């Protein structure tokens, strides 16, 4: 792939540094991140390629590959990076930035899961596991997925059929509201 390089290409790394404090330019492509990554086999753009693409400002390619959503946040890359780059923070930064961008995402269900998760947490103050699973299954159009796992868990009382509300839920919603305001004002 040939890239016409201009000052504009530096914008992405600058934006990332402003948002996350991480300098992607420090990466020298040793590939330790990719070699240790448990989900690299499922990524179209491997972690070290993502770092290179971020250096070159190829935002569209990064979002199109969907790699940022396949990352499991297991912290292996962060532990092994010889340049001490917080790669997950970079990926989280790109996830945060994606809210305001309109690029194609091959795995729209995964950000939808995070949104549903946070909505339920805001509502009850805790995770309501069964409700979360049901809502995501509906979103994926596979309502009965994992029913073979859920039914014995329900029978053994390992899944609660109804949500349990925390008394702190109100305070939590207040905090979430203030954060939204703070981030919106930025």
């Amino acid at each position, binding site marked *: 792939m040939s890239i016409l390089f201009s000052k504009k290409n530096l914008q992405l790394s600058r934006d990332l540094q402003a948002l*996350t*404090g991480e300098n992607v330019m420090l990466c020298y492509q040793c590939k330790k991140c990719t070699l240790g990554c*448990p*989900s690299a*086999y*499922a990524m179209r753009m491997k972690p070290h390629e993502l770092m290179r693409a971020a250096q070159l400002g190829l935002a569209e390619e990064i979002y199109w590959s969907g790699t940022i959503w*396949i990352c*499991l*946040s*297991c*912290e*292996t890359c*962060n*532990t092994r990076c010889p340049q001490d780059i917080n790669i997950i*923070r970079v990926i*989280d*930064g790109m*996830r*945060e930035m994606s809210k305001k961008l309109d690029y194609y995402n091959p*795995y729209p*269900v*995964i*950000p939808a*899961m*995070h*949104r549903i*998760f*946070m909505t339920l*947490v805001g509502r009850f*103050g*805790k*995770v309501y*596991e069964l409700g*979360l*699973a049901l809502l*995501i299954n509906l979103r*994926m159009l596979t309502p009965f*997925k*994992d029913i*073979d*796992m859920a039914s*014995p*868990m329900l029978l*053994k*009382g*390992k*899944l*609660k059929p109804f949500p349990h509300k*925390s*008394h*702190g*839920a109100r*305070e*939590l919603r207040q*905090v*979430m509201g*203030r*954060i939204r305001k*703070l*981030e919106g004002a930025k």
Partner: protein
Amino acid sequence: MMPYAYFPGCSLGSSGYDYHLSLKYVTKALGIDLMEVKDWVCCGASSAHATSHLLSIALPVLNLSHAEKDGFDKLIAPCLACLSRFKAANVELEHDDDLKKKIHEVFDYKYQGKVKVYHPLEVFLEMGLDKIRGRIQKKLKGLKVACYYGCVLTRPPKIAQFDNVEDPQSMDSIVRTLGAETTDWSYKTECCGVSMTLTRSDMVLKLSNDVLREAKEAGANAIAVACPLCQANLDGRQRQIEETYKTRYGIPILYFTQLMGLAFGAYPKEVGLQKLLTSPREVLGSVGLM
């Protein structure tokens, strides 16, 4: 009795209830008093930091400040997802004044960063293996246990500040103290894939299968875990994994606290063994524990 603030997290109320039961049993036996954090809320796990960094720090701080207000300086978080979020919040607040300013803007109560966060393993090790040895009534002879630490108990070292990053030994030393054998294996800290458990189950099946296969190959007849999410994947999905990969494991996945409870002389029901999906009856029965 040593009082600790206790943050059970969402899992220990439902899918990890057996962890809760066994942890309560073991801490009581060792003289540790667990006081549940008042009005605790979800720590945000892996979804909060995927949506907003500030939110992912604010949720742990909300809980930590409840504990601080009640005068605690030590908090136990048995779930690894909660544990790593709490530790990350403490470390980042200490080093990032900008973030601290923002967090103080969001909260009425100004959290001072006085609450130190521990995993039960850290607390037990700090008390010393001799204390554990003194409580043992029934040695776990004949069990060959693969200790599975999961992803974020030791990673990243800057935040976890516990044990060896790539080859941790804390759980092994406790399990060996109980009289069981532990296996040497290389998947101790691999990821089970839990953050995709609802959206990309295929990945979870692959990653969890790797862990189960390696444990079996190392000769283990049981796996000990320290996190309700690992347990839900390895135990709850074991049937699915066996069907997908056309194999048979039948390895019971026990919390290390359940093993401790058994060695301390608990009845199986007291430490929640009846809640496991892959029954431990055969393995524990063969060594005279059940």
